[in-house]
């Protein structure tokens, strides 16, 4: 079984989010980058599934060489080889087209993405890939098992879950519950250095949309403290002042 895991390189969850160039681009100065936490779940599950089925795991990333440390970490976790499409990840449509172009030539059985990236929160790549490759895509998986060429997937729905059976190949966006993120061990880190990281040129993709400006939300006013012996006052304020109950 051949598995492709799509990785996004995102600011660490503790990063302060600021912008430069008159609020038109993200300020990456001093920001630590990590594998998108949902992609880490995808990667961990891919490594487990490949071990069960004697399969292989390829990771793919669209980005510049500054992402190589993140890619090496994925190799240390257990991916067999890596591909980097050498371009700024302009937007989800661009990224999905790059990945689909590569995937078409390499016949993967399973393509995993995180349910969304924690920077642009788009959750678009999985659906775009499904459409571009003309295969099923499942947006928010909480559980993923493979039995020969069939996947059993639990998908998150409002107030519950849906259990489905889908024939491979498929695209799955993984969420918490699919796997526990793996921490690379020393042997993994050593072998990651010698694994293949292929760098490919991007294909041309038209621009459909573009972020032109960022704003940070206005800060809230001072907190109004209410005495713990007087919770009725809170109820009153929520009713008459905040008008939320």
């Amino acid at each position, binding site marked *: 079984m051949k598995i492709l895991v799509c990785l996004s390189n995102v600011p660490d969850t503790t990063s302060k989010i600021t912008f430069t160039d008159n609020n038109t681009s993200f300020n990456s100065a001093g920001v630590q980058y990590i594998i998108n936490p949902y992609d880490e779940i995808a990667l961990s599950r891919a490594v487990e599934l490949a071990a069960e089925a004697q399969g292989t795991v390829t990771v793919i990333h669209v980005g510049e060489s500054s992402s190589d440390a993140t890619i090496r970490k994925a190799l240390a976790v257990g991916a067999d080889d890596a591909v980097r499409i050498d371009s700024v990840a302009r937007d989800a449509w661009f990224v999905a087209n790059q990945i689909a172009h590569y995937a078409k030539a390499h016949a993967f059985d399973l393509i995993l993405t995180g349910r969304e990236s924690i920077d642009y929160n788009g959750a678009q790549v999985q*659906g775009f890939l499904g459409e571009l490759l003309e295969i099923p895509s499942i947006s928010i998986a909480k559980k993923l098992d493979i039995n020969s060429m069939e996947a059993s997937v639990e998908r998150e729905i409002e107030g519950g879950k849906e259990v489905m059976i889908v024939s491979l190949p498929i695209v799955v966006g993984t969420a918490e519950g699919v796997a526990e993120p793996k921490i690379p061990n020393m042997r993994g880190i050593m072998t990651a250095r010698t694994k293949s990281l292929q760098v490919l040129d991007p294909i041309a993709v038209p621009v459909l949309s573009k972020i032109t400006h960022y704003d940070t939300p206005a800060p809230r006013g001072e907190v109004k403290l209410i005495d713990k012996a007087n919770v009725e006052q809170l109820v009153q304020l929520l009713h008459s002042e905040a008008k939320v109950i």
Partner: protein
Amino acid sequence: MSILVYIENVEGELKKSAYETLSYGKALGDMTGEEVTALSIGNVSGEQLEKVGKYGVKKVIEVNTKDLSHFLNQAYASVISEVAKNLHTNTVVLANSFSGKGLAPRVAAKLSAALADGAISLPEISGAAWTIKKAVFSNKAIATEELHEQKKVIAITPNSLEAKVSPVEVTVEKYEPQVLPADLSTIIKDIVRATDKISLPEADIVVSAGRGMKGPENWAMIEELAQVLGAATACSKPVSDAGWRPHEEHVGQTGLAVTPNLYIAIGISGAIQHLAGVSASKTIVVINKDPEAPFFKVADYGIVGDAFEVIPQLIEAIKAYKNN
């Protein structure tokens, strides 16, 4: 030229997010002068479909074939784009719900449309140029995005735009789409839904608790508080990681981002990752025994006190308020 609003149902019932999309479509139609049509897929009663008119949309296309009684991502995306093509639709509006997130990119790709997902505003339209706002970096920032294509798919964040009532008469038209067998290949084996629970992404009020609750056995009072308020329950990451509560209740940067009218945080210190997922809530109440908890800095109202003392009193106070 037209606007098509896909209205999602949950087991045959139109939910709040469907009304929000209808109201959005109606407002957009008022801006562009285009006709607005709603599309319902699945087994939704005529009585439910009548409700579409309450939000100013006059026409519903109803697709209710046997193969499509349950949500199937590929098939539903095909139907939406087929109807959009028939109606010469420029803009498709849908909810950025769990299912909507799967549909939106597929529909956009089929129509070669620009996709604005997670929209939190109506577009600003100036000639052919549209800009729209969406939350990014898990609510830590708002991005303004330009849509360059004539065709657009807009997936709106639940709870971010109010459904405005503006009643009109509705006509329902049945339609049988051409669905390819390949689009129906997914087999749905089981659907498990806790019907007595309020859906977290759509909830007006969320009661959320953290490690300050000390253990899963203490959640009864959180559930009771949620119940008296008609709220959904949520939790912080350490709580779901410890298995005290299910993952789907985890709100924060790596969990669900929520935007209720009222978010009540109990025994949650307010780590930056948690705040990211909840900071767009309209009103925030924090109950924590540590007066230095960072959550107080982003709260509207706070009580410094032990949850085990404050919550039972709060439950009684709300019951008293509701009885009046």
